[in-house]
Each structure stands twice: as structure tokens, then as C-alpha cells.
């Protein structure tokens, strides 16, 4: 009984803290407690999805493969690049592409089966692993980006 009350308190406290924090989350250190939990959740789910959909080519450590497959270890955090990355995950990309000063010229297949949430989780994992720190990517952001893919 006592432990139940305690649990209820913690849940209440957690939701209060998460409600009070209202920043964008572009820097992980500024995140509220609730957002940090969400970021962790997305990262864990994203890691599984990454292994399933991305890791074979981009490698488990995100290092890519020679000049065939680009690395994902230091991606830009600007909104432009976030939009572009979201579109690339969903619709793939073909032809010349410069990543970190190296020109690639291959083909990445589309992943039309991925939902907005799944894309958000994958990008949250990639965007906060290795040298990356782009903060949480929400499914609402994915939805918006996908509506404006070129």
C-alpha cells in the first residue's frame, strides 16, 4: 500500500516536471526530467530500428563503408539538415552526395514502411549517438518535414 502511494507520488512528480519544462530540447542538458525519459525511450527504440533498417549498410558504429556508404557519426543539427535527413530516411536518395568532405555516389533505398514515430525514434537514436547531439526528434516534426520533401 505504502509503495503504491510512493509510486503515485513519483508519477505525479514526473508528469509535473515534464509539464513545467517547455523548451525545444535542442540541447540535451537543458531537457526536463520527462523529456530526458522520452529521449531515452526514443533512443532505445531507435537503436533497435537502426539495427534492423540502417545498420547493415551504415554499420553498427555508424562509420559507413569506404566511399560507398557515408558515415552518420557527425550530422548537422540545423533544421534544414533535420528535414533533409527525415526525407532521406523515408524516401531514400540516389546520386552524388557530399558528406564530411567526401563525395558519395550510390543509392539508398526508400523505407516507406516506416511510420513517423519510427523515423523520429531512429533519428533520435542516430542524432544523439557517437558525436551527435541534436536532441529529441518528435513524430510531429517528422510529419511536418515529410510534408515538405522535395
Amino acid at each position, binding site marked *: 500500500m505504502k509503495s503504491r502511494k510512493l509510486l503515485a507520488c513519483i508519477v505525479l512528480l514526473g508528469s509535473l516536471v515534464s509539464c513545467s519544462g517547455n523548451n525545444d530540447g535542442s540541447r540535451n542538458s537543458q531537457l526536463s526530467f520527462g523529456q530526458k525519459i522520452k529521449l531515452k525511450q526514443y533512443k532505445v527504440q531507435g537503436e533497435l530500428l537502426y539495427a534492423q533498417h540502417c*545498420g*547493415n*549498410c551504415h*554499420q553498427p558504429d555508424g*562509420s559507413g*563503408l*569506404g*566511399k*560507398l*556508404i557515408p558515415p552518420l557519426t557527425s550530422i548537422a543539427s540545423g533544421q534544414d539538415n533535420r528535414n533533409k535527413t527525415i526525407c532521406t530516411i523515408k524516401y531514400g536518395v540516389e546520386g552524388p552526395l557530399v558528406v564530411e568532405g567526401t563525395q558519395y555516389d550510390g*543509392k539508398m*533505398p526508400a523505407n516507406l514502411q516506416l511510420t513517423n514515430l519510427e523515423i523520429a525514434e531512429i533519428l533520435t537514436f542516430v542524432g544523439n549517438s557517437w558525436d551527435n547531439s541534436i536532441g529529441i526528434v518528435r513524430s510531429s516534426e517528422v510529419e511536418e518535414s515529410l510534408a515538405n520533401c522535395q
Partner: protein
Amino acid sequence: MINKTLTGLLLGWVVLICFACSSSQSEDKLPILGRQQIVERTEGAQTLYDTIPHTVADFSFVDQDSSIITNETFEGKVYVSDFFFTSCPTICPLMKKQMLRVYDRFLNDDRVGILSHTIDPSYDNVEILKKYSERLGVKSSKWHFVTGNEDDIFTIGEKSYMVTAGADESAPGGYIHSGAFLLVDTKKRIRGVYDGTIEEEVEVLMNDIERLLKEGENEK
């Protein structure tokens, strides 16, 4: 009398120890894989049975430099063989990343070679393989990417290297193939099979290559 028994015992010990040593040495050798063939022959009045180990059959393919690659290319060499295709969306990039480790480790050792067969030869022509190997950043004298007759490639995969390689429309990319790396010795015998997608297994492979090279030195 006691002295004689003692000497006998001692001698027995020495023999036993020697035997133990030699048998443990042979256990150190890598196994010879594949089905052996027993061949009968007569020598005078005697009938003798020879055990012929499984070996890689004769082949002739073309690599990324348009050079013809046959068994003779790897004469006197230890080599690692695998099957892949350049447009492969599944395990190939993982295999190639791992094979790159083998390449880097033995780059300056001419006794070691690498042979990657495409199982999609109608798409993976010499030009595509050339571009692929260049973008991977490897020398063609060390790592041969070969293409050729589709049936020949599938057959050598299944019969010689004992791996799965074939077309399958239901598979992603249209082909099924194993992610195996095969270690072949200087006598065309297969001495090891490793999962080319797993880092730890490739570690074992690189160790085994060293062991094979030592074995070759001892036999000289």
C-alpha cells in the same frame, strides 16, 4: 633386474611423452573441411586406398581489372573467399567492412589474398566491380572482385565452398547468399568457415590465417 625394469619404464615414459607432444601438435592444425573421397588403387598385388581431401574445383573468372583469375592466381597462397553483390541491401556491407579488416591486417603479406565473387554477374560487370573496389579503397592485386558465368559462380559456391548462393526473387535484393568467409590453404583445401558479419569470428579467422601461414612454413 630392478635396474632393467626401471630403464624400461623410463624409456616407456619418454616414448609416451614424445607421442603426446606430437599428437598435440597435430591437434593444433586447422581441420580440413568437406567430404573426403576414398580412391582405390593397386600397387603390384596390393590394393591401396587413398584418402583424397575436398578441394576447390578449377575456376576461371574475371576481376575488376579484367584480369582472368584462376586457381593459379592463388598458387602458393592462403586466401579468403566470399560471395556478395554490389547492390546488396542486406548483409554485404557488413561483410565488406569485416573483410576490410582482413585486408588491412595482411596488406603487406603477399602470401595472403582475397577473392570476392559477385552472385549478380549480370549487373555486377567489370566496370561496376572496378568502381566498387576503388570506392572501398582496396588494391586489386590483393583483393579480387570477380564476375563471370552465373551458373559457374553458383556451382563453385555450392560445390566447392559449400555455401548457399543463388537467385531468389523473394529475398531482399533478389539473391540469397550466406555471409560466410571461407579460408582456403595453399593446397586448395578449405580450412575454416567464419561468419563474415561478426567481428569476433573475423578475429578468429585472422588468427587462423596466421596459423596456416606458420603451418606452411613448417612444411617447407
